[in-house]
């Protein structure tokens, strides 16, 4: 299941960035992108047959570029940037939960929440992601992590 989730995460994230944000990833991670500072983070929790969350982090000036692109406004507010990141997280998460089985039946996705640096570090401590991907852009990079509460393998056996 982990492989399927990772593949789904990659596909959903790329399409979301391309179709919703009008941003196209670049293949190579340059040294400068590896060391970029955290710009913003958001999480979306889901409840259903499995529970868990998706966390998205942007580095560099990526979120500013995304929001400017979406709104056609070069100076988006912090609120607009947070809303944009939350919306992206929500769309990606909605595309992954069907891969947890039953075609996504009965899953509820909660409203996205912005995370500050401390909250992000606390959330990341709670478990290891089942899948994670990094997308690189000229303006920065995005790290997306998908978590399932408890042990996915054990839960799968019980089902």
């Amino acid at each position, binding site marked *: 299941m982990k492989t399927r989730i990772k593949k789904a995460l990659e596909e959903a994230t790329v399409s979301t960035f391309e*179709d*919703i944000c009008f941003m196209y990833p670049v293949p190579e991670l340059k040294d400068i992108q590896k060391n970029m500072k955290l710009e913003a983070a958001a999480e979306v929790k889901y409840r259903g047959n499995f529970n868990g969350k998706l966390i998205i982090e942007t580095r560099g000036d990526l979120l500013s570029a995304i*929001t400017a692109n*979406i709104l056609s406004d070069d100076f988006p507010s912090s609120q607009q940037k947070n809303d944009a990141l939350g*919306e992206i997280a929500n*769309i990606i998460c909605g*595309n992954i939960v069907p891969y947890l089985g039953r*075609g996504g039946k009965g899953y509820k996705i909660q409203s996205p929440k912005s995370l500050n640096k401390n909250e992000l570090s606390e959330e990341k401590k709670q478990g290891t992601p089942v899948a994670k991907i990094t997308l690189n852009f000229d303006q920065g990079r995005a790290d997306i992590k998908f978590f399932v509460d408890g042990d996915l393998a054990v839960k799968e056996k019980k089902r």
Partner: protein
Amino acid sequence: MALNILVVDDSSVMRSIIIKTLKLSGIPLGDIWEAQNGEEGLRLLQEKWIDLALVDIHMPVMDGEEMIRHLRESDQYSNLPVIVISSESDPGKIEMIHRQGATFIHKPFKPETLKEVIVAITGVSHEDKD
């Protein structure tokens, strides 16, 4: 014929994305109206001439399902073309939307997909100018 379109979504960012995608789709557009929830959407429908509604499901005050139910029960808007745009993946919910006579588009979506669906349900085409 240019379409007057109502976009109903509680996220202003998502409304902007939908409007941008509509513009990129090449569909002839008239006036575009925005509402933050179903209740506001129904109010705008009373005030403006609207040919098509693009509606989210999960919204505060009045969600998309309830808004569509009101539309289908009204004499004036029972046949209004409605497209639900959502990241909802529950097949039961999606089936309910279809039963209400609405079309479902899953997020993320491309301008071409939006155009295809709009052409199919309204009959408008990019050759239509007025």
